[in-house]
């Protein structure tokens, strides 16, 4: 008799515990706060180095989805070739600070190269003949499989140098160009949330 009681209590307790546990599980899944998108920084991405000059030549392809450099035959999202930035999907430019830009627009994307992402100083200002990504411009990409991403160009030169130094101004000591440093956030779930 005593053991039956023990077993019953045990069973009831067990059931209660199980019930509790499953209740807890429910409250765990209730309001889910999504973590911010991971910001990936790519440093010194460059096209293959020419055998003779040792400088980048040609085009380099990058996959935002996989966060790595890929070949032109593989699935790529963005490509760089001197001052031309192309995308396999469609693109538009927006104004803002990269970290506070949270929602991609749903329309207005244009197929083709990214226009007006840089300024060229020519000989009118020192440093001469320099390519600077325009401040406050965010490149928004809608990929071929309709995923949204935001990209900010940071530097066109090797090692992301400080462009206000005398060493940069002097063409003889300026780091090599066609080395792309940029940061991006890629929204894999297909929504326009770029937070």
């Amino acid at each position: 008799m005593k053991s039956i009681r023990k077993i019953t209590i045990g069973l009831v307790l067990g059931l209660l515990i199980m019930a509790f546990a499953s209740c807890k599980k429910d409250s765990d899944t209730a309001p889910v706060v999504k973590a911010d998108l991971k910001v990936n920084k790519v440093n010194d991405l460059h096209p293959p180095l020419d055998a003779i000059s040792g400088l980048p030549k040609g085009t380099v392809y990058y996959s935002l989805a996989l966060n790595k450099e890929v070949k032109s035959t593989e699935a790529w999202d963005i490509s760089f070739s001197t001052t031309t930035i192309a995308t396999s999907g469609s693109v538009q430019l927006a104004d803002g600070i990269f970290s506070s830009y949270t929602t991609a627009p749903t329309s207005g994307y244009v197929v083709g190269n990214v226009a007006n992402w840089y300024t060229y100083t020519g000989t009118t200002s020192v440093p001469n003949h320099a390519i600077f990504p325009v401040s406050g411009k965010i490149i928004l990409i809608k990929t071929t499989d309709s995923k949204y991403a935001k990209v900010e160009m940071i530097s066109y030169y090797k090692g992301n140098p400080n462009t206000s130094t005398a060493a940069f101004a002097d063409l003889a000591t300026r780091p090599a160009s066609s080395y792309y440093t940029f940061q991006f956030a890629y929204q894999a779930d297909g929504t326009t949330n770029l937070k």
Partner: protein
Amino acid sequence: MFFGFLTFAQEIITDTIKATDLKDVVITATRTEKNIMKLPVPIIRITADDIKNRGIVRLNEILAEQTGLTIVSDHGQGIQMQGFDPQYTMIMIDGEPVIGRTSGTLELSRITMANIDKIEIVKGPTSSLYGSEAMAGVINIITVKPKDGFRASVATRYGTNNKADISLDASYKNEKISLSAFVNRNSSSGYSLIENSSSPTVVPFSGYTGNIKVGYQINKKSDLNLSVRYYNNLQKNDYVIDNRLVLGDGKESNLNINPTYNINFNAKVKSSLRLYYSRYATKSALNYQDDQTVYDDSYFTQNFSRAEFQTDYSLLNNLKLTGGIGAQYETVKATRYDQLESFNSGYGYFQADYTPLIKLNIIAGGRYDMHSVYKSQFSPKLAASYQLLNNLTFLTSVGKGYKAPDFRQLYLNFTNAVVGYSVFGYEDLAAKLLDLQNARQIQSILINPNSLQRLNAESSLSYNAGFRYAVTPKVKVSVNLFKNNIKNLISTVIIATKTNGQSVFSYLNIDRVSTQGVETDISYAPIKVFQISVGFQYLDAYNRDDVDRIKNGKVYMRDPNTNETKLVKLSDYGGLLNRSKYMANAAIAYNNAKDGVFASLRAIYRGKYGVSDLDGNGMVNMDSEYVKGYTLFNASVSKLLIKDRLRLQFSVDNVFDYKNINFISNLPGRLFYGGLTYSIK
């Protein structure tokens, strides 16, 4: 009492010309003779002695040393005053405007200082008397009036870079007639800031100025004067374009004919009729040296004619009225304009100079301009001075200034053959754009020309307030605060992009700009032969729309260390290009007339100024977008010999050889000059 009244009446004419104080009279500020002590607007006066004692021979050299003025290089050397670009200051010789501007800049070195009596610089909007171009103020160069008898002199100066300046002048005056003839030759072999560069920074040039003046005293009450002035300059151009040498002559000429008739009807009323014809022409023929093909073959001819009639009426002994009317006709014909373009305009101005109390002087006036192309303008001005103490006078003024759109902004038709961009004036913009579209040269139109309003004049509302204080008879201080709010500033904007990747520019009234600041001048004469003076200006010049954009968080820059984007704060904003926040000048002069020794040392400080927009955000915000501040030192010494007839002069400009070869093209380093002047009295 009757006798007393007569004396009073006499004082009206000679009111401000107290026998001993002819030198305290200024004429530019009010277009009448006015005592400088009471003048309710800021003014700088430079005498011929100031100029000669410093060994200076051209206008740019003397203006560079004045408080609140700076020489800026932009299509020539122009004057910046109260933060305004050179196109907003009218430059006159004997009250008539000098024409011939390149992109708004009047080249100051064109004007010789050898035959001038004084320069009067009025700051603040003076469109109420002079109309367009007098938005920042006016600079009036007053030439020497012949003195009794026969006089002649020769003046020479020669220095570094083979810079030579030679002047000859002769004059004769008796009771009835006065004659003067003046000729000046100015030349230089130019210079290169960059050693071994293939073409010079400033090319060699030589030029002449000639001025003949005739005066005829018809009777005690009226006189007739005629001044004919001619200037020409030849420049030996030498450029390297795309690694090819381009050579050719550039010619420039300016003819001014100015007859005036003055009549004093009676003690209270006098009038003058002034006619003015001016012609400015340039011609340049540049060819590539390797194959003699044409690089640029262009001409520019501007004609300006004006008739003006002014009457001054001393209604009461403390109220002087001035009224004037005038008509102008101006034409331009040039390679970069399709056809002969012309402007007709008429105007009237009025001024009341009222002294209700001995200590209080009020000047109110206005000018109405009607123009064949742009909207009519009314420019009023109100100024007052109050002499609180014998040695302290307060002044304040408020006025409206304006600047008409010029030929370039209305009619230009220019395409740069080498780079490929085009600039069109507003009037023909739509038609020109259509032509380009039909020729399939337009990529996209950014602003539809049909949506644009007709180009209007730029206008400003300005405030000036300050005081003149003779702290002790030896120490004098003057302070002026100013604020100019300008709207409808005409700027170039991109209208369309071409298929060759370049842009089509035109001019629009878009900007709202403000300049404000404070300037001060202190002079101290410890003993009679020494004079020390110090001047300082603080200037804030900014685009109001840019400031709004910054406040709304719409302007970005890159952090120089990480190169990531961040917002531009108001404290980062560098204001308008080419304006220094701080400028100062100091001078020590030793003037010993008894022994005939004059010496001076002057320093001019120009604070850092923004010159570029490297990060593409449309404004100056990074340290690398500024040119460093610098100080220049000029020294000169002269000795008078042979009963003051012979003057020997030696001067050094830019004593410490300061240069900034990347950014400042008009600083060739240290310059030495030696000169002698001989006068026959």
